[in-house]
């Protein structure tokens, strides 16, 4: 396991290591807009619990950040989101840059003022949206050239422009503009994108007008090629940025490839800076990637699936519109403390979801956000209390017990664990959930060579 050993930050809890202050374009030191304090670390995996101090308050990690694309968390008010315990959420530079535009938001005292959110905000660069949403976008060294879907005007989103918009939005964490390619792509385009992302990172750092209030994160690229990833890591970690994101994943790649890249990346990222894994939100992935050393996650899945009437539970999800819930007078989750579960039954939500009253969607959205936040909280507590491995075992047991088929197929990673440590068990035809008692969590941190 390659891990950068910093003599000043041995693996002891409560070690205080302030992130080096980000530098302005003139190279002078500004006060740090971000500090990370590692509170606890798991001895058998790379999981850690930290405190992330940002301009709009402290965030406990590992953290899941709900996505409020257009300056709103869908049907949930800022007050409701705050009451659920959310301390950081996402806004989307591409969407907000188009409507209502950075000038207006700046007039409204930034995105915080515009949506009246007093906690932290993270904005992405807009790069991913453009490439995924727009049919006609062209990437050059300059930036991403595209046509506005609203008025047809030709626009260039350059690293400088992206940072300029994010400066106007005033987010606590902003992302570099990266040259993002699909993870299933192979060949020289992947390498080109990786190198370009490094050059764009440097341009973004220079363009940041407010390093003392806004933290610019780098995004590690390199596709599914370990050599490219390592090269990107080597270069980007030379730059003095307050945090790193692992990008270019959670596309069409297999799970096996996915967390190979994740664990490779966290191996080479500095311990005392936060690691943000972009676009990950399924409960199982969150647990695994925390074990692999990630601190921050975002995903539209929980809020999006809510609007289809799908409620997240420890055993998977409940499609509340289905007939089986018509006379189910239990809450979505008996153990959940969210306002929806405190007051409403699955049967009522079933009825309401079949009406055109949007309140139905809000009930499920509130629950799903609460579910994600409660999950991260449980993960974090288990790390702090030095029982993260047991937590993972229980988690898998709950998930796989109720979905034996899913665990056998979709939980491909469970099989890989078994291959690595107990290959003889594969020959046995025992029930899948029996395996959970013998899975060694150290397997989560296997090295790349020798599989």
């Amino acid at each position, binding site marked *: 396991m390659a891990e950068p050993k910093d003599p000043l930050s041995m693996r002891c809890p409560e070690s205080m290591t302030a992130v080096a202050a980000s530098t302005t374009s003139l190279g002078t030191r500004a006060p740090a807009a971000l500090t990370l304090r590692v509170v606890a670390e798991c001895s058998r995996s790379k999981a850690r619990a930290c405190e992330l101090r940002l301009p709009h308050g402290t965030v406990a990690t590992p953290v899941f950040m709900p996505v409020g694309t*257009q*300056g*709103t*968390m*869908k*049907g*949930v*008010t*800022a*007050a*409701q989101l705050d*009451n659920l315990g959310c301390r950081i959420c996402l806004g989307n530079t591409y*969407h907000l840059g188009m*409507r*209502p535009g950075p000038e*207006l938001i700046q*007039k*409204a005292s930034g995105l915080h003022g*515009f*949506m*009246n959110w007093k906690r932290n905000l993270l904005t992405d660069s807009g790069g991913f949206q453009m490439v995924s949403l727009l049919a006609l976008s062209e990437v050059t060294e300059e930036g991403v050239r595209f046509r506005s879907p609203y008025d047809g005007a030709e626009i260039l989103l350059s690293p400088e422009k992206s940072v300029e918009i994010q400066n106007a939005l005033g987010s606590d964490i902003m992302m570099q503009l990266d040259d993002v390619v699909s993870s299933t792509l192979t060949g020289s385009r992947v390498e080109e994108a990786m190198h370009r992302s490094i050059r764009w990172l440097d341009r973004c750092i220079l363009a940041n007008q407010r390093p003392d209030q806004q933290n610019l994160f780098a995004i590690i690229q390199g596709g599914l090629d370990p050599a490219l990833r390592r090269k990107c890591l080597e270069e980007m970690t030379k730059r003095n940025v307050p945090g790193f994101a692992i990008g270019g994943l959670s596309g069409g790649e297999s799970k096996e490839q996915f967390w190979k890249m994740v664990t490779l990346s966290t191996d080479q990222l500095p311990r005392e800076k936060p690691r943000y894994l972009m676009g990950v939100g399924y409960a199982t992935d969150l647990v695994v990637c925390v074990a692999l050393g990630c601190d921050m996650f975002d995903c539209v899945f929980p809020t999006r699936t809510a609007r289809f009437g799908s409620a997240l539970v420890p055993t998977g999800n409940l499609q509340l519109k289905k007939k089986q819930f*018509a*006379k189910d*007078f239990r809450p979505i989750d008996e153990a959940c403390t969210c*306002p*929806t579960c405190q*007051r*409403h*039954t699955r*049967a*009522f939500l079933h*009825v*309401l979801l*079949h*009406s*055109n*009253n*949007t*309140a*139905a*969607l*809000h*009930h499920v959205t*509130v629950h799903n956000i609460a579910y994600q936040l409660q999950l991260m909280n449980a993960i974090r507590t288990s790390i702090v209390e030095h029982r993260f491995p047991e937590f993972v075992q229980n988690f898998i047991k709950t998930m796989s017990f109720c979905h034996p088929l899913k665990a056998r197929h979709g939980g491909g990673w469970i099989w890989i664990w078994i291959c690595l440590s107990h290959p003889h068990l594969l020959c046995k035809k025992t029930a899948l959930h029996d395996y959970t008692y013998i899975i060694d969590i150290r397997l989560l941190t296997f090295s790349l060579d020798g599989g």
Partner: protein
Amino acid sequence: MTKLIPIGCTRRQGYRAIVLRPGAQELENNFTMKLSLSRVVQGCRLGTLSNLGKKGDRCMEFPGCLLYTRTGSAPHLTHDTLQVISGVPAMTQLTLSSLAEHYEILEEYKEGIGKFIGMPESVFYCSLHDPVNPCPAGFVTNKSVSVWGVGGRLEMTVAKFMAIQQALQPDWLQCLSDGEALCADASSSKRAKKSVDRTLAFLDECLKLQEQSEVLRSCVMIGVIEGGDILEERLRSARETAKRPVVGFLLDGFHGDAMTKETRLRLISSVTAELPENKPRLICGIGQPDEVLECIEAGVDLFESFFPYQATERGCALTFSFDYEPNPEDMVLQQNGQKEGEENGEHIDKIITTKCVPETSFEINLKEKMYRDDFGPLVGGCSCYCCKNHSRAYVHHLLVTNELLAGVLLMMHNFQHYFGFFHAIREALRKDRLGQLKELIYRQAC
């Protein structure tokens, strides 16, 4: 047999003893909802309804409105966002059209609609139809009335209707009625007579069934006044319905364009003159502020609150003033909340909405481009969640980007504003300022 009934809203105020006689009288005094009239000003009644609800411990002032719901929930709002609104009425309106198809679920649930929808604290009135969604006419027979739910048409005989109500267990329920006297092109006194006959027959049958069920006896019947635009039929309906042991009256069929305003108000006044003073008068389908005032003057006590919902669906915020005694400070606040274009009645760059119900003069359309960079509240001086936390520019943005939060915020504002209007009516009646309020409201109507 005597029974001790609390006087007023709280038991502190003491008790009075009433003698219960079996049969009709007992039904009528069921849980002794009490109506106390404090004054009558130019035909407008001001008072309180007390001993409401299954426990007999809730009250409601009138003139007032009920909380409008769709499928058992305030539109767009969860409990958290609803309870932030001030002035939410004690009584909630449910619509049978949205709930009837779920009656098997409620039968199995057993604990009644209030608990099922997560509003155990509220008092419920169940109307037949939804004032916002008109249902197709031509489906009333001598034996049945139909409502339209998500799953289509649901035909209800008296027996079925009462069975559904037994599962719902509302506190007040609109009795099965024939409201289609004016649905055909030409008004006919024959059709009007039929609507009255049928409605009375339904009422009598429902009352009979009610006697046979303990559960149903805790729900009280609202008698429905029909008769189209024929005065004699309206009077007959009023007099006959008043003879039955109902707890209140619904004046049906006065909404829409079927009759002129003058005819409508004349008929309403004539009807209420025939009704006992000690029972509340409800009206359906009337929500616009000027029309509300006219109906109150004609003797109506309770209204629905679908009007703020309709404004919300149009992307509009209710902005009409009901502050008939503004102090100079408030005047400035209100003015700051208005742009010049509005004063002149201009509508710059209006984006045409897809809703069919036209915008009224009591609201502003936040989709309009002029609000794009207006960082003031929806209404200056409004203390609702939206006005205290957000700007017109933000709501405009939410509407332009089709975000769900637009509906949530607008509904919160529009409900609070509307409930505030009714509060102002009661205050104006209390302080003898009705004329000023009327003048203010009519000035804003056009």
